[in-house]
């Protein structure tokens, strides 16, 4: 499995994260997204005419779009079936819904981060206000989920690829000047994601410390 990868890309990180969580080995092909703009180079456009990262090559099969890649990897390699439960119509519907939501997070919070950090142009005010609107919706959703003892985005006892798809833009939002201080349910969910076994980081995100609440209940 080859991953065409840029270390600081939130969308590449989604794929790296799921591969670590499931335990998929992969080969790194670095694409110099910044400052080299290699994703717009002739050789890369032949692989992906959209000029976007990430992209995978698995045994000659080429797939672009981080969310499509999450669906493919979970379906093909996750024997437990928990990350993308193909037999559960309701959960699959919810996952598709939240993958769409994650796309909107990319084009708001994700764009604001690229604007402030790497000077990639966008309408920064509307990206930030759009991100806050989405984060309010997600925060409320997660709060109701918690009330029903559901710790993840979808109605499923385990995290799914919907959690992986939404997590990076949210967790890196402060690089785009978008504070998470008003979203306590989001912050608790971020801690839970960071405590999933085999969680890995991207520069800008640190692993979570031990869960104090759990320790207290134990003692």
């Amino acid at each position, binding site marked *: 499995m080859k991953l065409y990868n*840029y*270390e*600081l890309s939130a969308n590449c990180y989604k794929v790296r994260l799921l591969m670590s969580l499931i335990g998929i080995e992969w080969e790194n092909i*670095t694409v*110099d997204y*910044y*400052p*080299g703009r*290699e994703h717009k180079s002739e050789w890369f456009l032949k692989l992906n005419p959209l000029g976007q990262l990430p992209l995978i090559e698995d045994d000659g099969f080429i797939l672009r779009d981080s969310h499509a890649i999450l669906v493919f990897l979970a379906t093909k390699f996750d024997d437990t079936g928990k990350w993308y439960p193909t037999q559960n119509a309701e959960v699959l519907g919810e996952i598709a819904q939240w993958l769409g939501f994650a796309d909107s997070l990319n084009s708001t919070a994700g764009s604001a981060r690229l604007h*402030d*950090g*790497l*000077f990639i*142009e*966008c*309408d*920064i005010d509307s990206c930030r206000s759009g991100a806050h609107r989405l984060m309010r919706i997600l925060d409320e959703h997660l709060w109701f989920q918690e009330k029903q003892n559901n710790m993840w985005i979808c109605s499923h006892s385990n995290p799914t690829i919907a959690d992986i798809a939404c997590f990076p833009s949210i967790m890196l939002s*402060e*690089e785009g*000047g978008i504070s998470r201080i008003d979203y306590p349910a989001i912050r608790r969910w971020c801690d839970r994601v960071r405590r999933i076994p085999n969680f890995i980081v*991207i*520069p*800008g*995100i*640190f692993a979570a410390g031990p869960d104090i609440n759990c320790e207290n209940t134990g003692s």
Partner: protein
Amino acid sequence: MKTKCCSDPAVLNLWYAIAAIDELESDHSYHTTLLEENLKFKVDGNGNPSVRVVNSIPPGKTIGLKQGEEEAELPATVAYGYIWTSLGEPENELFSIPEYEESDRRNMNAATVGVHTSAPRAIENFLDMGHFPFVHSNILGAEPHTEVREYEVEVLQNENEIVATKCVFYQPKAATTSSEGADVEYLYRVPHPFCSILYKSSPVDESRMDVIALFVQPVSEEKVRAHMLLSILDTDNDNSVIGQFQQMIFGQDKPILENQVPKKLPLGSRAETSIRADKSAITYRRWLSAMGVKYGVLSATS
């Protein structure tokens, strides 16, 4: 001419790097912000830079730029692969980095990155070794090797420059050329309030040092563009591999820098608690106070 946003002469009269030459197309106009002023700049086909202030654009906006009212040309020069300019009248020549001229070095801009912090906070973080094992875990440091051993700091009066020497730190992967962990020797120079140069032992030649410089362009008091110059001994790796390594390191510093409160650097001796390992930082803060720097800091008296 309208009043400048920044009124601090200690900062206005300095040179600032604003862009890496290699990343510019010649005769193409670019915009950037320096000390809250919008600048328009370009390089011509011969590599000669020109920089102007543009007044009609609200600071921070880069979308929908129209031909603005342009002001007089600013001083502009090229050094270390960057365009440098000044909003005031620079009294001194730019500091020297003699190693940059050595013919076998790889000289490149690792990246220019935007950070929500003040320029002096960015420099102070660059000088700090204590965070290596925690922020750059298993790269520039590793637990349990967390001790910052005794080092020396002095202000060279003739050059008006801070120098920290005899810094030694255990690093699992000091550079792209490292094959194993090693005690790495560091030397830091701070020849400019918002620029610092780091020398560290080269993994490929023990008699020489790699040079990594941080040139901070203050966009506003709490926002910067950080330009990272590399002048290193590495014949094995592509520019993109070397650049990505530094971007990864800097990406790890980012959340730390952006979460420091206040974003401006407090110069009062009791504002923040320092430990022995912060000797460079303490000297840096005193040095900024002595120079009367007001921009991006909270003055000791305020």
